[in-house]
């Protein structure tokens, strides 16, 4: 076996199946960037013996629950060494569990050298190892400012954290995200949902269109009537798989209560309930909407955000929060530049950081980061 000293990855394979062991080893052998060191049938065997090989990558079968539960021990025993989970059938639950324990990501096996390299590239881009934060944007009524808020928060997270951010425009009939970025998508949610049973995270990535640095967008269908072809279960599956690709997943929703919008909120860690101040009746609508989510506050981080609040100061914020019986409430100012950006498809350039709007976005992002740090 030729020694590949300059190979980037020194690999230990953890795999119970003999045929699969040989197949993976053979793939590594013929691929430049990898040097196959050794193999073990279980994580238990690997953790006690691997140190003599000084690996920097474990390819670990994670279908065995004992293996994936050992991931934290691996990260402690082999600091700086990447762990990539392997499975023969994709499971979002397993993938999420591995991410939570500290794995870089998961891939389907068997795989080609190219697929392995692509996966590692995508997972490294995702940002620091750790679980994904998913944020759903709900609004009782339309014209709430939620898409603008979402888009600016996404840009901020992408820019400031360096982690990969994915937007899912699940406002299926009338989503605006593609227009904000002047994007002409090749694929949309419709294709993603159609193909969800045949893709893995790596093959799902191209359905998300790059719209800014570290930011990708899965657009809503091209025609309003296509919305009917999309069911909650399939879209949830897409969103779950997206969690393997991105450090932050932001979901835009159609306005109002529906099994669809609530279903998508259910899979989120954070829910923002967004309304725009106008006649004042928005507060009543928000109270009504909060009724839907009654009892959810134990499971989710929820926050009401009113946009276009004037004056946008602490007194006003407190007043609104009091009207909502103390429910966490944030306010956003009117920002005319945003209108111009949305109108010209230039949202991707971001907004000047010295505006009040930008500061409020930064504060929200700060809370999200703090939450991500303490799961």
């Amino acid at each position, binding site marked *: 076996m030729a020694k590949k000293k300059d190979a980037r990855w020194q690999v230990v394979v953890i795999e119970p199946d003999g045929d699969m062991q040989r197949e993976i080893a053979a793939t590594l052998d013929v691929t430049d960037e990898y040097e196959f060191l050794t193999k073990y049938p279980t994580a238990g065997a690997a953790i006690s013996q691997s140190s003599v090989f000084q690996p920097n990558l474990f390819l670990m079968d994670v279908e065995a629950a004992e293996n994936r539960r050992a991931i934290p021990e691996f990260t402690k025993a082999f600091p700086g060494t990447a762990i990539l989970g392997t499975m023969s059938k994709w499971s979002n639950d397993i993938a999420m569990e591995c991410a939570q324990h500290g794995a870089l990501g998961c891939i389907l096996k068997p795989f080609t050298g190219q697929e392995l390299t692509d996966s590692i590239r995508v997972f490294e881009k995702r940002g620091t190892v750790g679980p994904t934060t998913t944020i759903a944007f709900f609004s*009782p009524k*339309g014209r709430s400012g939620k898409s603008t808020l979402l888009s600016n928060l996404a840009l901020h997270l992408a820019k400031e954290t360096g982690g990969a951010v994915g937007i899912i425009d699940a406002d299926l*009939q009338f989503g605006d995200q593609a227009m904000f970025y002047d994007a002409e998508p090749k694929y949309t949610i419709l294709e993603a949902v159609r193909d969800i049973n045949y893709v893995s995270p790596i093959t799902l990535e191209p359905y998300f269109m790059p719209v800014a640095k570290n930011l990708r967008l899965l657009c809503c269908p091209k025609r*309003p009537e296509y919305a009917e072809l999309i069911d909650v279960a399939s879209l949830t599956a897409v969103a779950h798989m997206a969690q393997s690709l991105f450090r932050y997943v932001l979901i835009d929703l*159609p306005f*109002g*209560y529906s099994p669809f919008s609530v279903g998508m909120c259910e899979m989120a860690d954070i829910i923002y309930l967004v309304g725009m101040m106008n*006649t004042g009746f928005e507060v009543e609508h928000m109270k009504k909407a909060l009724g839907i989510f009654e009892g959810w506050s134990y499971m989710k981080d929820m926050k009401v955000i009113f946009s276009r609040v004037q004056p946008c100061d602490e007194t006003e914020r407190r007043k609104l929060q009091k009207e909502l019986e103390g429910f966490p409430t944030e306010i956003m100012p009117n920002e005319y530049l945003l209108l111009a950006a949305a109108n010209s498809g230039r949202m991707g350039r971001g907004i000047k950081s010295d505006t009040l709007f930008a500061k409020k976005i930064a504060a929200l992002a700060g809370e999200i980061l703090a939450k991500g740090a303490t799961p």
Partner: protein
Amino acid sequence: MAVERSSIIITVFSTAPGVGKTLVATNFAAGLAKEGYNTCLIDLDLQFGDVENYLGFRGEYTLADARQALLEADARGIPRSQVDMTSFLTEWRKGNVGFAVLPAPHSITETYGLESRDVMDIVEGLRSFEYIVIDTTAVFSDLNMDMLDISTSIIFLGIMDFIPAIKNLKSGYDVLLRFDYEANKIRLVQNRSDSQKLVSQREVEKLFGREFYYNLPNDFPTARSSINFGVPAVLGTTHTKLGDSLWDLVGMFTNRPEAPKETTKPTGFFAKLSGLFR
């Protein structure tokens, strides 16, 4: 024997939210009533309806009660057509102008399982009105589609100041045409037409392939105070840009003679009803 008449149904619809549907719908009901027509306004923004908010009242009954009555009739094997839908209406009155309102359910739980078929039967039960005005939400739902189907005329309302909104209006309008709604049943009305715009009216009209049927002015003070006082702008005591235009627009849906008649006698559905029992 006189020809049997059926109501004229005017549905105010849009595929962009917040464009003034409720404002137009409430003013239509008021304007038609002012002209002396028996008018009923139905709020089909089931979850977050604004009709009661904009008219400053809270009805004793809502669409949820009307539907409950239908379900009870079903359970007792009584035909739905025998349920008196008018008993769930609230009269809205200002001076001698009055019209009937069927408000949206007051709580969201009451909208669970509320099907378009139920609403169709409720509307059917209100066919004694000369005009039925329907307020909707900006989405293609079974309910909205069914209402568009049974409408005599559709006011497709838009504001053309925001590019993503124009996209949604255009793609929604195209859906209506693809689904074979007669183009001349759809009246393209532009709201806040004289507000700051990035796209010229001609460009937008080119995009839609037809001219606007009517242009309503941007008149924030009138819109705001009419909502605050709960009185539609067409009933304003002084002339306003918005009130006058809406009154003008209402006239394009009736056979109003050039000079509008001044109503002196109480009008509207309840006036007639109470007349019956006098």
